[in-house]
């Protein structure tokens, strides 16, 4: 039983440590050299496309998949050879995996029962988690009598009833419709934070990762690409993959020409247009990629400050200016997504709908601007 194996000491160290973890089925490694640490009370998201190894990693932490190399330590204790039922970990499965032959309350009591708790405590815990997910009226229902959202709450409650050191969530929102998903994100985070639960979630949904996480581990091809807070990941992506996977990014190839002003570096695009970048770590003559978020770009209204000759537009201090050709507009409600062609490359511009330039028709030439600080320069 979990309690006897793992005395619940409040360890001051990290809840979970992954040290150069590798996982392989057969010869092919699906995950290699993954290291990170999860602190108590943290909500960490493993974000990546399908096949990035995030689910395998989650299953390895839960104990369903053996680790072929490296170490997983839970509260300082190595987990190698420890079966899932002896790990102080509870899992919320993607399909919820509720026991269909048990009522909601019986599902909730399953975990506390295996812990060997006294009957009164089992019942108390089941009622407590039932209250926490606001399903008091549904305790005697069977899972198939509940809606998808209610089933998800039961799955979360069942895991919380274990009072685990670590909660694992496998694509927790993927079976909910868009509206419910947005609502459940907030509810789940509020609940987990109020109970100080340490949790790792797996998702391929960047919005979910940004909205819920304290930190995000971006994974691709079985390895970690970047670890950071949602703000760090979004604003300072380490490579074009992260930039493109977490939000949208325009990528412009350019070469660094060195510092022109304090903190301001000059780049030349492949077609020879100068651009200014603030806070750049590249040296002169480094080939780089400039990442610009679509919402950082503006289309100044009217002809004001619009030069006649496209090639002659120079960056004006912190303000980068280019001339492109308006291609198309997609109205998204709150925003308008505008595509502008720039020397054969397509640039995505996302404007608040109220700032949309309705005077533009496809084929018009248009001046586009962005701030030098809104650009992220990375080595190619």
């Amino acid at each position: 039983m979990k309690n006897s194996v793992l005395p619940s000491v409040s360890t001051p160290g990290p809840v979970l440590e992954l040290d150069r973890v590798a996982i392989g089925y057969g010869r092919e490694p699906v995950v290699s050299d993954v290291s990170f640490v999860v602190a108590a009370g943290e909500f960490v998201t493993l974000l990546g496309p399908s096949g990035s190894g995030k689910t395998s990693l989650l299953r390895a932490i839960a104990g369903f998949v053996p680790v072929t190399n490296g170490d997983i330590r839970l509260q300082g204790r190595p987990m190698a050879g420890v079966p899932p039922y002896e790990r102080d970990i509870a899992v919320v499965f993607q399909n919820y995996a509720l026991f269909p032959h048990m009522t909601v309350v019986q599902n909730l009591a399953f975990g506390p029962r295996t812990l060997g708790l006294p009957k009164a405590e089992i019942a108390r815990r089941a009622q407590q988690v039932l209250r926490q997910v606001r399903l008091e009226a549904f305790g005697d229902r069977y899972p198939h009598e509940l809606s998808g959202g209610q089933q998800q709450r039961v799955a979360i409650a069942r895991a919380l009833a274990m009072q685990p050191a670590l909660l694992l969530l496998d694509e927790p929102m993927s079976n909910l419709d868009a509206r419910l998903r947005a609502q459940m994100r907030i509810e789940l985070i509020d609940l987990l934070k109020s109970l100080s639960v340490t949790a790792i979630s797996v998702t391929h949904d960047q919005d979910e990762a940004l909205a819920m996480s304290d930190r995000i581990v971006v994974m691709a091809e079985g390895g970690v690409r970047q670890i950071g807070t949602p703000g760090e990941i979004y604003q300072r992506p380490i490579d074009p993959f992260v930039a493109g996977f977490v939000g949208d990014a325009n990528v412009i190839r350019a070469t660094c020409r060195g510092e022109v002003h304090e903190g301001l570096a000059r780049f030349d695009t492949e077609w020879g247009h100068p651009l200014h970048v603030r806070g750049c770590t590249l040296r002169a003559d480094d080939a780089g990629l400039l990442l610009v978020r679509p919402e950082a770009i503006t289309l100044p209204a009217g002809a004001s400050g619009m030069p006649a000759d496209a090639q002659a537009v120079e960056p004006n201090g912190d303000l980068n200016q280019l001339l492109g050709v308006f291609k198309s507009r997609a109205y998204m409600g709150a925003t308008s997504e505008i595509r502008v062609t720039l020397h054969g490359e397509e640039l995505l511009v996302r404007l608040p709908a109220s700032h949309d330039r309705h005077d533009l028709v496809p084929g018009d030439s248009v001046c586009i601007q962005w701030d030098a600080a809104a650009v992220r320069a990375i080595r190619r």
Partner: protein
Amino acid sequence: MNTSAFGRSKETPALLSGSDRGAPALVQRVQRLSPLWLALPACLVLFIFGIGLLDLLLWSLRSSGSLGAEALGPVGLQTYARILSDPLYLGALGATLRLSAVSTIASLVLGLPIAYWIVRTPSARVRATLIMLVAVPFMTSLIVRLYALMLVLGNTGLVNRVLHGLGILPENDFLPLIRNETSVAIGLTYFVLPFVIFTLAGGFRRFDRTLEEAAQSLGADEVITFFRVTLPLLAPGVLAAGTLAFVLAGTAFATPLLLGGSAVRMIANVIYDQAMFAQNLPVAAALSAVALVFTLSCLMLAGRLGRRAHA
């Protein structure tokens, strides 16, 4: 449906228009009929079956008469009283119950691991091979399979020859494996095993393995997981397979006839003898009714147990 769409427009399929002017009118008339008419063929079939069963029940209430002749004697339950007091018929009923039970248990014991293996093996080739091994005898004529089994079980058959060859049995002795209840039980098990395996495999396939992982992540070890999650969820499938086996074995005719000969009489054999040779159709009909009631009660009991397991 817009009937005017038919008629003589150019798009009308050749089958419906053509030179025959009656066809569109027929289509229109059929379309005007109530959809209830579509149930007519099914009702006809049920009606014929119903008449047959009713006729059988009427026969069972008379006291004598043979196939193709008039039913004679007063209407009453005298034939039922007769078969339920005659040790010959009671013996056949007892043998039927006994042999069905033995072959049901044996086929479940043999079928469970095979069905589990078929569903859980990670190798597609192993799965295909196992399914073929079960399906080939399943699709072979039962008579052929029973003759094959006679060759194996006979007094000079494969089993006895192997036992002689290994010196386990003396040359002048043999294991009696034919024309007794043992051979019929083996034959019935062999007969129902494919049904049991396929029914069980269907139930196992529907079982969601993440439920076992969920149980383990909730602190249940393999034993607790098996008894509290796996077994309760597989039970309806096992029950269905067991019911099927019991009913199939209980109504077997060829297996006891070929493997049991005159030594083993199951209910179907007695019914056949009474109807075809003894010319006593009321007894045959009453035995059939008893067998039918028995089968129906098995199915109802299984249905009730199954509902409880699912509740």
